[in-house]
Every structure is written in structure tokens, then in C-alpha cells.
């Protein structure tokens, strides 16, 4: 494969990454959110593999494999099991209506493009174009965390931020050192497991996964004391 084709593929994957970030925000059902999240993980693995091929970086192949197994398969599967067991697979409840969220998301994307543009000019890597998109995806994941009521969608937002950071690492420096990456991967895995346990705890304590009810509960408790 020629260098130009690889660059075009990386750009194409970056565009798809942006699309999955928007799609995560736009979904109404918990399970379709999860499917897009799994898709994002697979996309991440594919991008890592392409960049690894393009830069002859063997460590990146291992990162790609880890992304494939962990982010594309294991985490979605774990979350899917939790969603099934908690019976919360119906509607995602956003705080803002979805058109408004989309407009904010577009604004966020424009903003990240604006701030990354000067940095991009100093880079000579073939993945430099994807840095603005990676930043946008980080911000979009954060947007997802603040506009959702349920704890599970907030966690998916958090994991999407982590995906975007991994993508940013591939784009900015062609991947972090392997030790760091393995460390982060296991952190995320453990975090997801603990979140899974937390969901059950939260529901038995508060009878709901909505974050607002937790606040209300705590405030109510303060009043009692």
C-alpha cells in the first residue's frame, strides 16, 4: 500500500470516529448506544493497525489487538450483561433535547478544530490531521457524560473519552509506550468491572440509576440530620 492510500485510510477512519462520537450522542436506546460504542472500539483497533502498518511500529500492533479485544468486544459485552441484568435497556434519558445536543456537539467540534489548527501545522506525522478530530471526540464524550441522566450512559461517555484519548495518542505520537498502554487498558477494564458492581449497589441503595435521585437522596439525608 502506498503512503498516500494509508494517509487517506487514516483520515477516513478519523472521520468515522467523529461519526461514531456523534452517533453515540444521538441514540435513543441503551443497546444501540452500546452497539455504536462497540463499533468505535473496532474502529480504534483498525486505525491502530493501519498506523502500525504505515509506520512499521510493531508495538502498535499489540495496542491494536488490545483495543480489538478489550474495547471492541470485552467492555461492550460486560456492559451489555449489566444492562440486561438491570433491565434498563429501554430509553436513554437526555437532559437536553436531541437537536439541541447536536447543535452543541457541532459547536464543540468547531471549537476543537479551531484550537488544534495551530498545533497541527507544527506536526509532520501522517496522522496529524486526525488530532483535531481526536480532541473533538474527547469533548463529545464529556458532553455525553454531562447530558445524560442515567449512570450507565455516563459510564459509556467516560469510556468513549478514553477511546478518544487512545485515538489522540495514535494521532499525536503514533502510540504511547507499550507499558503505559497496557497499564491504561487494565485500568479501564478494572474501572468497567467496578462500575458494573457499582450499578447494582447504586440501584439497591437508591432504587434508581438516575444521578438526580442520588443527589436528592443525599440532600434529604442532610435534612434529617
Amino acid at each position, binding site marked *: 500500500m502506498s503512503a498516500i492510500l494509508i494517509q487517506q485510510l487514516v483520515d477516513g477512519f478519523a472521520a468515522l470516529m467523529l461519526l461514531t462520537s456523534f452517533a453515540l450522542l444521538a441514540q435513543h436506546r441503551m443497546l444501540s448506544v452500546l452497539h455504536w460504542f462497540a463499533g468505535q472500539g473496532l474502529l480504534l483497533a483498525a486505525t491502530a493497525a493501519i498506523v502500525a502498518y504505515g509506520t512499521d511500529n510493531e508495538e502498535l500492533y499489540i495496542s491494536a489487538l488490545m483495543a480489538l479485544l478489550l474495547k471492541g468486544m470485552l467492555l461492550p459485552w460486560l456492559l451489555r450483561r449489566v444492562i440486561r441484568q438491570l433491565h434498563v435497556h429501554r430509553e436513554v434519558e437526555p437532559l437536553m433535547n436531541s437537536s439541541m445536543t447536536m447543535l452543541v456537539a457541532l459547536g464543540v467540534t468547531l471549537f476543537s478544530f479551531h484550537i488544534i489548527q495551530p498545533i497541527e501545522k507544527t506536526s509532520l506525522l501522517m496522522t496529524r*490531521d486526525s488530532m483535531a478530530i481526536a480532541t473533538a471526540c474527547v469533548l463529545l464524550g464529556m458532553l455525553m457524560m454531562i447530558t445524560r441522566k442515567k449512570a450507565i450512559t455516563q459510564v459509556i461517555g467516560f469510556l468513549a473519552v478514553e477511546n478518544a484519548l487512545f485515538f489522540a495518542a495514535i494521532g499525536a505520537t503514533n502510540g504511547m509506550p507499550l507499558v503505559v498502554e497496557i497499564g491504561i487498558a487494565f485500568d479501564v477494564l478494572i474501572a468497567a468491572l467496578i462500575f458494573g458492581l457499582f450499578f447494582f449497589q447504586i440501584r439497591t441503595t437508591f432504587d434508581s440509576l438516575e444521578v438526580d435521585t442520588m443527589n436528592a437522596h443525599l440532600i434529604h439525608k442532610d435534612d434529617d440530620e
Partner: protein
Amino acid sequence: MSSASVQIIQAVMLLLFAPLAAGFISTCKARLQNRRGAGVLQPWRNLRKLFKKEVVMAHHASWVFRFAPYIVFTATLMAASVVPALLVDTPLSLTADVIALVALLALARFFLALAGMDIGTAFGGMGASREMTFSALAEPAMLMSIFVLSLSAHSTNLTTMITHTINTPFALHPSLAFAMVAMVMIAVAENGRIPIDNPTTHLELTMIHEAMILEYSGRHLALLEWAAMVKLLLFSTLIVDLFMPWGMTAQADLTGVAIALGLWMVKVAGLLFVLALFETSMAKLRLFEVPEYLSGAFVISFLGLLSYYMLEVGA
């Protein structure tokens, strides 16, 4: 062959093939649903029947109601005649501007909505208000997705854009993929196909286009239905022009035009088949979800614009 004659052939071809295209879709759908279907020629038979029938009009229908079918049909036909289908550079190519095209279609829609409201039935007014609401959302998205292409071609003129696409070497352009998805979504909405509107329904609560033309009969109805078919073919040709124009001829010689005609038919038939496939596999959206669908199309076209600046300008 002179390019003027090709221009005329093109316009007549779009006009005559439009009912065939509609018949092709319904035949494809019938086959996909294990029915035999009425055949490709059925829309032509319907039109002939309607043209023979007497026109029945409400007593208090004004001139708007009477003239609207002719205005709608003429505006659609004008739009169809400026879109290049076979020859890139036609005598009318200066007028083949996308913004003018959108304006012509808006003119047709404006009169259709007026006619819907003119006789004062509840359905006409309801259909007109729905049509205007949705088109207000669809038009910016359509223009936005076309602007993605205009950015690299530096023009909104269709001929210039097509020439630019043919002359640049093939490459993966994420922005064009976004623009194409948005454009297809808008084309589905603008032509009132599933999942936005069902062209075969007369169920009151879900109608948009059919509600506006409910009171029409005879040749008026025939003209309006024909215009709708031409519009469908026009949108397919526009998508082919913008995103896969390869094979269109630059010279008006016989072999070039013949090859262009064959390729155009294959490409349009492919698009229409995909449409039939989607219509068979999808259910109609709830009416209140349509604005979300359209804003989704707008977001996708805007993403196309952004990814053009992010990924393709510097590269």
C-alpha cells in the same frame, strides 16, 4: 449531434423515463415482498387514465387551485431540464446552478402548499403545514451537503462541479461520503418516500404529500403525480451527477452519448433499487421524529463540511 439536441433529448428523457422509474421502484418492491407487481408500465397507464378523466373541482376553488398543477409541473420540468444527465457542458449549463435548482423546486412546493390550503379542507391545510415545516429543515441540509462539494470545486454550478470531480484522480474523501449520506437522506425526505412519507398511503394521519393533492382529479392530478415522479428521477440524477459522474460525456458525439446513457441508466437503476430495498426493510417514522431525522441529515452534512476542513485542506 449538436449539444443543443442532446440537451433536448436529456429533458425529454427525464420526462418520459420518470413514470418508468416509479414503476421500476414499485416492481422491485413487489418482488422483494414476494408479489408479482403491476409491471413497470403501470404508472404510465395510470397517467393515461387520469388524463382522460374529467376534472372535478370544488365550488369555491380559486385560480390558485386551477393553475397550481401547471406551475408545479413546469417548475419541476425546468429543474429537470437544466440538470446534466448525459452531457457535462450543455447550452443551459450556465443556468444549472444548484441554488437556482433548489429555488425552482421551492417554487413548485410553494404553489403546491398554496393549492393545498386554497379549498379550505382540513387535510389540505394540514398537509401544507407539514410540508413547509419539513422542507424548512430539509433545504438547509441539502444546500449544506452540496456546499461540501462546492468547496473543492469552488463553484455551485453543476457543470463546473461535475468537471472537477471527473478531472481529479479518485481518492477516498470522507467529506464526500458524509455529503452523500446526507444528500440521500434529504432526497428520501424531499420525495416523500418511506421513512418520511408513504407515497402509496391514503391514511389521513400520516399523509404529507398526498394530503395536499387529495382534492385534485383528472388531468390536474395526473400532472401533479407526473411532477412528483420527475422530481424523484431528478434527485437520483442529481446524486449521480454530484457523487459518481464518471462516464458522462464531454463531447456531444453519438458513441459518447450512448455510453453516457447506458451508464446513467445503470447508476440510476442501482440507486432506485437501493431505495426499494430500504423502503421494504424500514417502517415509516412517527411524524414527530421526522424533524430529528432531518436535523440528523443536517448534522451529517455539517460533519462533511468540518471533515473537509479538518482532513482534506491541509493534506
